[in-house]
């Protein structure tokens, strides 16, 4: 069974540009999470989807970040416009309902120049 996949693995963009990160959870997992690790800091929660609904988006840093999960399958996280402080590794994780182990993807390393 394929694990959580994320695309792209790396992205280098200039300040002011737009980037869209994609996450494909494990098939059948209703819960999908986005996290971010900024250099030297802890992995921080961004938001949580249950199927296509946003269960908790308390960790989203500001309105430059937009997450979607149309159809309750894959999710996208768009940053527009990107700022220098958005650089970091963005992780996606998924879990089935009622099971609190989260399965992580390999992450997308975003560099904003």
């Amino acid at each position, binding site marked *: 069974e394929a694990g959580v996949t994320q695309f792209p693995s790396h992205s280098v963009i200039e300040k002011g540009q737009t980037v869209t990160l994609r996450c494909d959870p494990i098939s059948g997992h209703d819960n999908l*999470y986005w*996290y971010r690790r900024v250099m030297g800091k802890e*992995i*921080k929660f961004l938001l949580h989807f249950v199927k296509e609904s946003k*269960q*908790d988006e308390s960790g989203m840093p500001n309105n430059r970040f937009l997450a979607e999960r149309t159809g309750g399958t894959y999710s996208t996280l768009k940053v527009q416009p990107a700022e220098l402080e958005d650089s970091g590794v963005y992780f996606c994780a998924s879990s089935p309902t009622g099971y*609190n*182990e989260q399965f*992580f993807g390999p992450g997308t390393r975003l560099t904003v120049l």
Partner: protein
Amino acid sequence: AQRVTQPEKLLSVFKGAPVELKCNYSYSGSPELFWYVQYSRQRLQLLLRHISRESIKGFTADLNKGETSFHLKKPFAQEEDSAMYYCALDSYNTDKLIFGTGTRLQVFP
């Protein structure tokens, strides 16, 4: 506020030495604590959770509510244990994980 603290950024030991990676938390209520591990070039994966009280790859962790700690221990470190270790807390109300800053364990031959 809910918080997880891992005081050591780096822990270096020789093969066969005991290892203890420290984790303290602050949380009002009954948290669920986890240790996640990330080996070089691999994804973050669950190592163990306090609820299951199991030993994985020789590692154990005991939840001490009095000291609000969940330290990870192994009596004899192996080179393949070298990795980044993250302590995490799961709030029952939200399902989101709150991570510590991580400890890099280096085991030298």
